[in-house]
Structure formats: C-alpha cells, structure tokens
C-alpha cells in the first residue's frame, strides 16, 4: 500500500442557516479553503469524493448539481452515502482511491443544509413496513438506549452534562463551530428542556448547515507540499444489523466500535489508547454517547466512563483531549460531520487548529457513527 496523507482541510462556518450560498456554493467555500490550505489549485485535484444525506434536502444524485462546487467538471466524482457515517466512509473511500495508485491527489467534501429540508421527517423515512409505524426520532431512540446504559453503568445526568459543557466550551475556541455558548454550565444543561428522559436539549447535537473538505496526497506529493502531513495509518469500518431492536444493549456493547478500534489499534501498535493517542475527534450525537464511546474505544474499562469525564482526562488539558473542536454536539451538518472529525484530527497533527490546538499531537483518532450502531475508526499520525 502506498502511503497517503492529508495535506489540507477547509470548512465553512457551521450555522443554523446559510442563505447567502446555495448547496453548490457552500461546498465551493469548503473546497476552496481546503485547496488553499494544501497549497494547490483545483487543477491539481485528480478525483473527488462527496458525502451528503440526499433525502435531508430531497435530492436525487446531488453530485450532479453540487459536484461543480467541488471542481467536479470532467473529474472522477463519486458520491458516498452510508447514513451518519457518510463523511467517514467518504474519507475512507478517498483514502483508498489515493492509495490505489490511480490518483495522486483526492479531494473529499461533505455537506448538509438542514435548513433547506425536513430532516426529522427525512430521517424517519426508514423501513415503511416497520419503523415508520413506531417513529420516535433520533432523540427517542437514543433515550431508550441511554436508559439501559445508565441502569447498568451508573452514569449520571451530571456526568453527561459535563460532556455537553466540555464540547461547547471547546467550541467557543473553534470559529467554525455552530453553537457558541462559552458560558454554558452543567446546571444550564440540566435545566434545559427535556426532550426524552433523560436527554435534555443541550445534551443533543444541533442541526447545522455546513461543509467540510480535505485533501489527500500520495507519499511524494504529500511530502513535497506539506511540512507536517497527517498520514493515514488505519481505517476500519464495521456495520451492524438494521433495526434498533436487533442490537443487544447497543450503547453498552457498541460492538462495531469496539471491534473497529481494536483492529485499528492493532494496525498502528496501540496497546494503551488513553496514553498513546494524543487527541480524539469522535462522533458523539448526544452527550451520553461520548461516555459510551470512551468505553468502546478502550479509553477506560466498562463502567469507568463517568470517572474519565469527572477527572478531566478528556478535557483540553487532560491526558487525551476529546473533541477540541466541540464535536458533533457543537456542529452537525450530517453529511459533513464525519469529514469534520477527520479534518479536525488532521489539523491537530498538522498544527493548524488555531485556538483549539492541542500541544504535541503525534497520533490522532477520528470516528464516525451512524444508523443505529455503525462505526468507522480512522487513525492519523505524524509518522508514516
């Protein structure tokens, strides 16, 4: 396999609504910034991978129109869609395209404009023979799994609220983040509107308009263009069964993330993830999920996630800062969210994260989450 690295990233401001640009123009903002960050032009791009949840905006083959915003004219453009993991799936597809030897420079762009659609209804367009009869939305479904998780692991609403506070305080240092609430407190999270017991409004991710792009380059090119490229060291995908009721205690087991992380760690030689990984950008659609992902990722033993947030291990100054960007809890343009995780992890390696930069990052972890329990795990490193 030839070595491949990320050499540039670009994002729009993620916001409740972007009226000044249409979808193609939104994508162009992110793509243009990523190309500039990589120090290349659109002419250097050999292939393009796009990610978007087409039914959220009611589109059929959205790449036809929006692809032009990624400089797709007469270029190989491929649109990837795997639910919430679309962004990380697109990042993995783009990595494979570059590593295959067919293309030397590959641009990945994810986007979503939730303000244009009916996301909640779009999301509920699941199996018409089954799920549509018992729709309770992403919040309701999470709340169900969280009730099991709390009962078995003893995690408290306060601990979950600390995750929500950490995310928004980090986001205050990230100019791209949608939610800007630097003064947020645990009390404010716990006193925010109850959506579905025990999930409060501020425990959940927002719905955002936004796009994120990144540029892959093959070994020689990466080294000539970038002083400190973010090398892709491991990519692992695990999908799971289609119905929520198929998954045995899904947040407790999260077998896809457990297995994907274990395999990725093996490939890179990580045996003690909490200490060997320097920063993590994980896809946490709800505060409680981050705690569950700590356990599945092996950052702590099962049942210890609450302690990890209590003792500050995952804060910006902790042993393993998790989501310095503010995470999905602070910005969630779904088709872009997975790309943002990977781009933010790369920015940390490349030392381009600005005010939310973590010191001395050599190894970074990014994850994608989607459907009921699908996972992608990606590990980037300063070392080839």
């Amino acid at each position, binding site marked *: 396999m030839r070595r491949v690295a990320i050499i540039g990233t670009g994002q729009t401001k993620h916001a409740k609504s972007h009226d000044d640009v249409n979808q193609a123009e939104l994508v162009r903002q992110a793509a243009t910034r990523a190309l500039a960050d990589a120090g290349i032009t659109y002419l250097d791009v050999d292939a393009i991978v796009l990610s978007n949840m087409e039914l959220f905006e009611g589109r059929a083959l959205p790449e036809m129109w929006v692809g032009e915003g990624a400089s797709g004219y007469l270029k190989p453009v491929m649109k990837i869609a795997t639910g919430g993991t679309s962004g990380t799936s697109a990042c993995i597809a783009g990595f494979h395209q570059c590593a295959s030897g067919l293309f030397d420079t590959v641009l990945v762009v994810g986007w979503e404009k939730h303000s244009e659609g009916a996301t909640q209804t779009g999301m509920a367009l699941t199996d018409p023979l*089954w799920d*549509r009869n018992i729709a309770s939305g992403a919040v309701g479904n999470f709340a169900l799994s969280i009730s099991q998780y709390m009962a078995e692991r003893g995690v408290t609403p306060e601990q979950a609220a600390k995750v929500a506070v950490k995310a928004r305080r980090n986001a205050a240092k990230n100019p791209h983040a949608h939610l800007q609430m630097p003064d947020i407190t645990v009390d404010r999270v716990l006193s925010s509107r109850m959506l579905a017991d025990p999930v409060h409004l501020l425990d959940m991710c927002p719905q955002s308009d936004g796009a994120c792009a990144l540029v892959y380059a093959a070994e020689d090119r990466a080294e000539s263009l970038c002083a400190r490229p973010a090398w892709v060291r491991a990519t692992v995908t695990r999908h*799971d*069964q289609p119905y929520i009721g*198929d998954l045995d205690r899904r947040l407790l087991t999260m077998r896809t993330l457990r297995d994907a992380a274990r395999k990725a760690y093996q490939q890179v030689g990580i045996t003690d993830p909490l200490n060997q990984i320097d920063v993590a950008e994980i896809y946490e659609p709800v505060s409680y999920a981050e705690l569950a992902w700590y356990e599945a990722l092996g950052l702590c033993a099962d049942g210890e996630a609450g302690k990890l947030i209590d003792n500050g291990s995952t804060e910006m100054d902790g042993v393993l800062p998790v989501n310095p960007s503010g995470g999905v809890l602070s910005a969630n343009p779904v088709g872009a969210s997975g790309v943002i995780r990977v781009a933010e992890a790369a920015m940390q390696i490349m030392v381009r994260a600005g005010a939310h930069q973590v010191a001395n990052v050599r190894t970074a972890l990014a994850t994608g989450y989607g459907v009921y329990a699908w996972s992608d795990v990606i590990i980037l490193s300063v070392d080839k």
Partner: protein
Amino acid sequence: MTELLRISHTMNMDWRYGTSWYFAKFIRALQDKRLILGLRCPVCRRVYLPPRPVCGNCYAEMREWVEVKDVGTVLAATVVHVPIIDPLTGQPRPSPYGMALIQLDGADTTLNFYLAENDPAKLHIGMRVRAVWREQRTGTLSDIVYFKEVSS
C-alpha cells in the same frame, strides 16, 4: 445587499414497497389473528422481529416461523416530550408519550414501541407489558395501539 431568495419545492410522490413472502405472512397473521410471528435462525437459534430472509449474524437463510407472545419485558424505557413528526401522517405526534424496547416472550430481538404510560416515574426496566390491539386492524404494525403494564 441582495435580497436572498429561497425556492420551495414540494415532493409528493408514492412508492410501492414489496413485502415478499415473509412480511406478507407476518402482516396477515397480525391482522387476521392478532398473532406476532418471528423467524428463527437455524444456526444461532435467535428469533427475529421483524422477520427477514437472512440472519445477519450467521448469514443463514431463515424459514422457521415461531409464534411470539404479545406480552413482554421492558428492557429500556423513556418518555418523549418533543412532538416528533409522524412520517405516516406528516403531523406531530401528541407528546409526551412513553416508548420502550420490549422483549416479547419468545423473541430474541426487542420491539421498540409506544407505551400507554407517559409518566417517567411509573416506568421501570423489567416491567411486564402487554399489547393493546386495535379493533379495526389494517395489516400494519400500527394494529397495536401501544403496550400497557400487565396488572399483577
């Protein structure tokens, strides 16, 4: 500063979703006999709801039907306070309402379904619930109104 416009489009289209033999049988039993049928995997012996042609864990075809009870145990519960848009009606579903993951007696998967109870204090993991059926059944999962605690 330019006036910024938005262009509206309404999607109003129908799709016809095939049922295959397995869902057709499931629906017929539900509508005609208030019977919940699952399919058993010949390898892992798990009984699946909803029925499907292949067990994803074993990659084995499933053909053995198993009668599942309309009584089960709550493994997870919540009360939803936000009015979720019901994809069947396009209207917000009246809230708050109770939801649970229910393991029906005889099934190995859980069924996520509405509860009659919507007071969080009265919901607990392990509670036993029974389906309340509609008088006029139409052959959909909605032939069950909700699940109600089995009075002891």
